[in-house]
């Protein structure tokens, strides 16, 4: 009897909790349930989506996936690619390298995908890069670490392509902007030492500002479980920093910005991609005066339209990662329309992609690095808890 009661309660607990989950504004859109178990009907174009759906970076991975799905739905609604429908096969990496390698192998060998939309997370992409050499399936990813696209000998991995400016370019953009446009001279740096994104943006920024005659007066690393940044920020302030460079993830950024204001720092904070909305509203009035870099600017009518439609459909906010996923799916559609769904042909076409006007900018791939060339980023300032576009910038400028 007790056995049954226990089973019953266990089931009840799970059903109850997932049920109250779905009563929330539809977190799950039905379209995202992958259906790779049934074999693709003749004629469907299968694209793999390899993202972190449940791990620590799930906020990023899910956004890319949703963006790609959104684009795929648009394409299918308009009749597909040359009359064929696009089907996305999404696998969760759990932010775990081992899971990711298994999922990658499965996509390429069992599901026979035409191309893979890879994660915006460095460790997984770097782990996949050497394996991808054995196959002929292009991986379109957003890991800004150079090692995710370029081998040690300086040549690119044949199947790996980066679709946003690399860490070097983004760090340089932020550094140049801070010194040249904002006239800042003394920087303090606070970064998450265990976060590859944060670390990879460190050196390029430092090199850029120093080459422009400005100085880094202090830098403090922190650990993933650190929640109290006041002591660290105090160190930066007392070292004479007039601006603080904080290329960190959203959650930590909220704390850093709030605590920086709490200790009386009223200078500039220069942040990475993760200060994009919803950061300003999450952070509150303290966010005003934060400068950040972004792939898109939300006020552009086409982007605004998608953000609103997506919000209406799912209740979620589309972030910049959404549009990265969206653009890449659109690029794939355009290429497949021209060269068909043979992975090798797609790969060659991506290598020579030039002047694709997407929502995240005008995308050209450099065949020598497999990274974007001259892709502009948009610098924003947060005013009254809303982003205000300051200037479009590319690293080559």
């Amino acid at each position, binding site marked *: 009897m007790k056995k049954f009661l226990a089973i019953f309660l266990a089931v009840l607990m799970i059903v109850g909790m997932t049920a109250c989950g779905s009563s929330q504004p539809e*977190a799950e859109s039905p379209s995202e349930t992958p259906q790779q178990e049934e074999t693709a009907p003749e004629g469907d174009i299968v694209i793999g989506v390899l993202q972190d759906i449940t791990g620590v970076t799930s906020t990023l991975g899910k956004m890319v996936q949703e963006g790609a799905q959104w684009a795929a739905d648009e394409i299918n609604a308009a009749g597909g690619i040359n009359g064929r429908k696009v089907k996305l096969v999404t696998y969760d990496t759990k932010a775990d390298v081992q899971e990711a390698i298994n999922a990658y192998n499965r996509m390429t060998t069992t599901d026979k995908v035409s191309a893979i939309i890879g994660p915006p997370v460095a460790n997984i992409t770097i782990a996949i890069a050497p394996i991808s050499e054995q196959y002929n399936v292009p991986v379109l990813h957003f890991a800004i670490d150079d090692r995710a696209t370029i081998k040690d000998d300086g040549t690119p991995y044949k199947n790996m392509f980066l679709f946003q400016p690399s860490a070097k370019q983004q760090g340089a953009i932020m550094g140049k902007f801070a010194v040249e446009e904002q006239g800042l001279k003394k920087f303090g740096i606070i970064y998450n030492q265990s976060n590859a994104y944060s670390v990879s943006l460190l050196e390029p920024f430092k090199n850029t500002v120093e080459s422009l005659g400005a100085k880094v007066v202090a830098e403090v690393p922190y650990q993933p479980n650190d929640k109290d940044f006041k002591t660290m920020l105090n160190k930066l302030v007392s070292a004479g920093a007039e601006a603080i460079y904080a290329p960190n993830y959203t959650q930590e950024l909220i704390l850093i910005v709030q605590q920086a204001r*709490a200790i009386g720092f009223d200078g500039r904070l220069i942040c990475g991609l993760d200060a994009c909305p919803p950061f300003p509203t999450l952070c509150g009035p303290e966010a005003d005066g934060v400068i950040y870099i972004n792939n898109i600017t939300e006020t552009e009518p086409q982007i605004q339209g998608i953000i609103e439609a997506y919000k209406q459909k799912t209740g979620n906010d589309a972030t910049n990662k959404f549009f990265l996923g969206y653009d890449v799916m659109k690029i794939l559609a355009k290429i497949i329309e021209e060269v068909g769904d043979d992975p090798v042909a797609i790969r060659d076409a991506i290598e020579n992609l030039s002047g694709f006007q997407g929502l995240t900018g005008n995308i050209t791939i450099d065949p020598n690095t497999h990274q974007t060339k001259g892709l502009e980023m948009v610098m924003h300032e947060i005013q009254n808890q809303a982003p205000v576009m300051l200037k479009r910038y590319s690293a080559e400028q």
Partner: protein
Amino acid sequence: MSIQIIINGLAVGSVYALIATGFSLIFNILKFSNFSHGALMTLSAFIGYFFAVKTGSSLIPVIIVSMLAGGLVAYIGEFVAFRKITLRSTSPVYYFVSSITLGTLYEGIVTIWVGPNFYNYPRFFQSMVVNIGGFVISKPDLIMFISSCLALALLVIFIQKTRLGRALRSVSFDRDTAGLMGINVFGIIQLAFFISGALAGLSGVFLGINYTLYPQLGNLVVKGFIASVIGGLGSIFGAVVGAILLGLTETLLINFVGSGYAPVFSFLIMLAFLLIRPQGIAGSNVQEKA
């Protein structure tokens, strides 16, 4: 300057104390480390968040709702994951496996539930900081510190002064004998889980307010574990002292050697404690029970 560091350290320490106490309470009764505690904090923090957003209520009702939710989930969790193990009274390792799995379950549910969004509690205070004698204290920190003290004081009074508290202590000391004395052992265990869950709810809300909400928020529970080892496993008083000590040490370390080595030092302190005073600050039982 150095007083400012101590204030920051106390603030951090008081959160660790709340985590460590909820954890110690269960250790006290069932003699196992409840690894689902962290995920439970996250779960109840999210319940509190959605309540706050839906009803737009002020801080106090949110705390109450989170504590009730945490208590209730812990109550059900005990029934689902631990009851049979207690009845069988076999090795404590089963508790360990069960509690980790339960934690995974909670975390999985939260991930499914909240989706890809970021969350932050609505503002409960107009200004975030108060200035007392030239020192900056953040309001959530202050309130957190005060309510931690309050909750812990109430808990101590409850355990030391009431009949139920006495029953709790006797069950913790010897379950079988307590049962023979006519104490409803499972009632007491359920009560302990409820209280521990409520504490998880309280710390969850504060962590959420202070540190924003995300599915892995509960990972902070590691600090609670370390604090309770320093304090002496299963001792509530020790857990509090250990937590404050850990909070202070960490803040000092961050100031003098940087955050990078802080976990290394925490670990070394823990090792040193085990070498010199294995029973912890409070001196609980460290040998395996026969």
